[in-house]
């Protein structure tokens, strides 16, 4: 909103981005980890399932081994093989050994080298060029005077297992993706809520008026407390500095202007008492000089203040008509002294949004100008209207502006040809123009039909 904003801060990286990247990175890593862990674990369980069934099968086979009439017979239960049925129709291979000789089954099914006694051995291998999972177990049959070791081995292809593993991997990936998405969403939410206090602090500081240097009292998270404290200290130093400057300026003004007032009063008194024309002229000249310096000082201070304020206008709703009326009331005694009539011609009210102090300064300077350059017994008309745009115009019946100088008159300290002989530095128009620009408006200068000056302040 304000012209001439102060320099925006320089961004070096972004908290939000850093948090986002970190959290998402962590989520990604965890998801990958989760995927691999789940896959491995599930694979282990799937393999365990196959092993369990194989184990049951081999156990059933061993349980069906008996010695009848000295001959070992193994009555394979139907279930021993039918339980090995899988969705992928895995192939089944088996062999049964009595001690070391094959009783029945596939002759070239490899046996593990060293089997442990009495417990099942599981191994993975290949047979007939396909990967298989194999279990081998033994049982000792005690006959009348013999001990026979029955070894059974069952092997199964792993098509079903691979199918299961693929399904597991796919599901793990899907779940992983799902969790990841959820994690991302949660991360984004968490980041927003964490950065929330920062944003809120920023907003509350930005919302402050340009003059507001009061400390921030709203509670903030612990980590932000040092920042807010430093900010408050900074603002307090600023505030003190401003106050000091203001106090200094006020003090300076007082110190400078009081003796000047003394001099002027004495000059006026002396002027009453002297008769000699040259003395009179000298004294008049003195008084003019004092007035000029006083006015110059005032305008310089005004100009400085405007330059300072223009960076952060304190926008308030202002009724231009009420403002004009107040000026007329205040300056009427001055105008009366020259028998100048101050006339007001306005709408009922004209509201604008602006900085009250700056606008008053500008208008006062313009009216001062008009009073200065108007001849006695003339009229100054102040018009305030809302259409075509809110504006305040001051017309006088003086000499007007020299046409060729209108452009440069608002340059600092420029005074027109017709200003010769009148007191005052040329800052009046400059001040008004600066204030207009700060509000996004314009100052237009021209002459009336009758030749007097017309200055309009447009919003």
């Amino acid at each position, binding site marked *: 909103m304000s012209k001439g904003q102060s320099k925006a801060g320089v961004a070096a990286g972004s908290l939000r981005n850093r948090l986002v990247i970190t959290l998402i990175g962590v989520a990604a890593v965890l998801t990958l980890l989760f995927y691999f862990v789940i896959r491995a674990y599930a694979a282990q369980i799937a393999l365990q399932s196959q092993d369990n069934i194989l184990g049951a099968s081999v156990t059933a086979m061993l349980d069906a081994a008996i010695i009848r009439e000295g001959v070992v017979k193994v009555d394979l239960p139907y279930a021993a093989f039918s339980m090995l049925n899988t969705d992928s129709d895995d192939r089944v291979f088996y062999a049964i050994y009595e001690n070391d000789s094959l009783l029945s089954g596939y002759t070239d099914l490899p046996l593990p080298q060293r089997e442990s006694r009495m417990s099942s051995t599981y191994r993975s291998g290949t047979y007939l060029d396909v990967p298989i999972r194999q279990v081998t177990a033994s049982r000792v049959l005690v006959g009348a005077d013999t001990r026979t070791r029955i070894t059974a081995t069952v092997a199964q292809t792993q098509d079903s297992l691979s199918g299961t593993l693929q399904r597991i991997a796919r599901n793990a990936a899907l779940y992983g993706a799902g969790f990841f998405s959820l994690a991302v969403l949660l991360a984004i939410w968490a980041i927003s809520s964490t950065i929330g206090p920062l944003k809120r602090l920023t907003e509350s500081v930005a919302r402050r008026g340009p003059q507001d240097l009061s400390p921030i009292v709203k509670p903030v998270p612990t980590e932000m407390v040092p920042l807010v404290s430093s900010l408050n200290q900074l603002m307090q130093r600023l505030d003190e500095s401003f106050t000091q400057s*203001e106090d200094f300026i006020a003090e300076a003004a007082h110190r400078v*202007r009081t003796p000047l007032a003394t001099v002027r009063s004495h000059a006026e008194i002396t002027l*009453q008492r002297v008769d000699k024309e040259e003395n009179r002229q000298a004294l*008049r000249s003195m008084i003019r000089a*004092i007035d000029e310096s006083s006015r110059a000082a005032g305008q310089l*201070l005004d100009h400085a203040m405007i330059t300072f304020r223009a960076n952060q206008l304190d926008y308030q709703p202002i009724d231009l008509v009420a403002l004009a009326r107040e000026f007329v009331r205040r300056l009427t005694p*001055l105008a009366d*002294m020259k028998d100048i009539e101050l006339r007001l011609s306005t709408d009922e009210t004209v509201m604008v949004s602006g900085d009250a102090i700056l606008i008053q300064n500008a208008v006062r300077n313009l009216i001062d100008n008009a009073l200065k350059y108007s001849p006695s*017994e003339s009229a100054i008309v102040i018009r305030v209207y809302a259409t075509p745009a809110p504006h305040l115009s001051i017309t006088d019946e003086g000499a007007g502006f020299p046409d060729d100088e209108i452009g440069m008159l608002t340059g600092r300290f420029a005074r027109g040809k017709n200003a010769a002989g009148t007191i005052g530095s040329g800052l009046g128009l400059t001040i008004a123009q600066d204030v207009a620009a700060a509000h996004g408006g314009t100052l237009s200068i021209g002459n009336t039909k009758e030749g007097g000056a017309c200055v309009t302040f447009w919003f």
Partner: protein
Amino acid sequence: MKFLLIEDNVELAQAVSTRLVLDGHVVDHAESFVDAIAFSDNGDYDLILLDIMLPDGDGRDFLAHHRAQKRDTPVIVLTARSQVSDRISVLDLGADDYVTKPFDHAELQARCRAVLRRKSGSAETVTRLGDVEFDPVAGQLSVAGEPLVLRNRELRLLELLINSPGKVFSKQKLFDRLFSYDDDASENAIEVYIARLRKHLDKSSLTITTLRGLGYRLDNE
């Protein structure tokens, strides 16, 4: 009129007092806040001139005290501060008007008159001479009971003359009092105003006599 001047700078106070006395006013001078309170509580003044910056207490405090006492003596503040916000707050606090130092006495007088006018009219300011009644505060002239409308400068010229009837005022003196120091009118403008005033007083008992080479004098026949 009786003024109370509250100003801590002695030199300025002296100058201002002298200037006011020259116009025929009575001035009491208080140098500090404490004195100011004492003077204003005990005295009866037509107008108080107050310097806003005092050594032992802001002029604002005096204003607050003054208003608390429910005195209605108008106060004009003498201030060196140029901040608009300062001036405004002074008025908010109870001052009736203000002038910035260094100030023009003519402006001060004009503001005094304006401020007094706003108060309930005080009959003591009316000057009567012959069949003319002149109230400088209200700015009204009536000749033989008939009110006349005069311009401001004409009124001020009449005020000067009517306060010292029989006194001769030189053109320069009159010029100095009526025209501001940066006015580039010639002294002959005085002749114009004298002529106008004569016209207004035509039917009255007062006359303005031109003394060639010396000036003008108001006489009551």
